[in-house]
């Protein structure tokens, strides 16, 4: 088993803006972490500088080395998950423990259709 794990309810990874994301974070570490939290974030990938923003986080208090905690996050309305040839915006839900900085990430998509918006497949105007 991995040390850090995230399970999203119904294994759902495709969301619409403003929807609620639910899941369970569970971990098995050598020692109780100093802090452990779930972070909702997006980052850019592509030709230019990487941008990253943690939109919200859910911290768990009074945890043990081996523990299991549910979480619920209301997703923002944007930016959408999107990909062109120059840049992609990629959303993720990440469980991060300190002090070791261990992390586990689950990628999700946020858009009106639930699918990544493909700029490179849009018809020219």
């Amino acid at each position, binding site marked *: 088993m991995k040390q850090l794990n995230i399970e999203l309810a119904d294994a759902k990874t495709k969301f619409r803006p403003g929807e609620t994301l639910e899941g369970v974070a569970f971990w098995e570490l050598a020692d109780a972490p100093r802090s452990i939290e779930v972070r909702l974030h997006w980052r850019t990938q*592509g*030709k230019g*500088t*990487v941008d990253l923003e943690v939109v919200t986080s859910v911290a768990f208090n009074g945890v043990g080395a081996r523990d299991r905690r549910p979480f619920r996050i209301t997703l923002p309305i944007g930016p959408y998950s999107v990909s062109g*040839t120059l840049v992609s915006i990629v959303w993720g839900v990440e469980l991060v423990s300190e002090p070791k900085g261990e992390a586990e990430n689950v990628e999700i998509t946020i858009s009106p259709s639930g699918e990544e918006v493909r700029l490179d497949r849009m018809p020219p105007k």
Partner: protein
Amino acid sequence: MRARDNPFRSDRVLAVRYRLLHGTWEDLFAQLEALGFRAAIVGPQGSGKTTLLEDLKPRLEAGGFSVRELRLDTESPSFEPEFLEDLFATLGSHEVILFDGAEQLKWAEWVRFERRSRAAAGLVITSHRPGLLPTLLETTTTPELLRGLVDQILGDRAAELRPLLPGILERHRGNVRESLRELYDHFAAVAG
């Protein structure tokens, strides 16, 4: 091709670390120590100076030093006076300053910076030109270096690109960073 699938996207390129063309990291660290931890990494744009400076950081920390990282570039070519006052007021004798882009400082600013930095355990800079501090290493690029980086990024898929690499590097006058950006564009043009 989606940007996220491009093998030459910036986060993958930045993950490739500096490759010493000659000698070992131990040799380089010994040379830096012999220079009293005050030295310059000198080379043209896109030749790996910044990457090498970044790669010195964990080695200095493993050697018991703390590290302060400073950076200047053409968009941000000088420090705020308050920043420098705070830096030198809090600088410890166990700290090494890693200063990327030292050539951006005007000469008088550099002279003053260099003098004040002597309170630290060390100062390692990058610069496009020699002469600011004794040169630790001159970063150079070769087609073989670019080929090695492309091999590392692409793995088995690198073979088809190899004939193109010398021309790409020449077109960018030895600038590896720009060469890798051209390879990004090459893959971006691939449908998928």
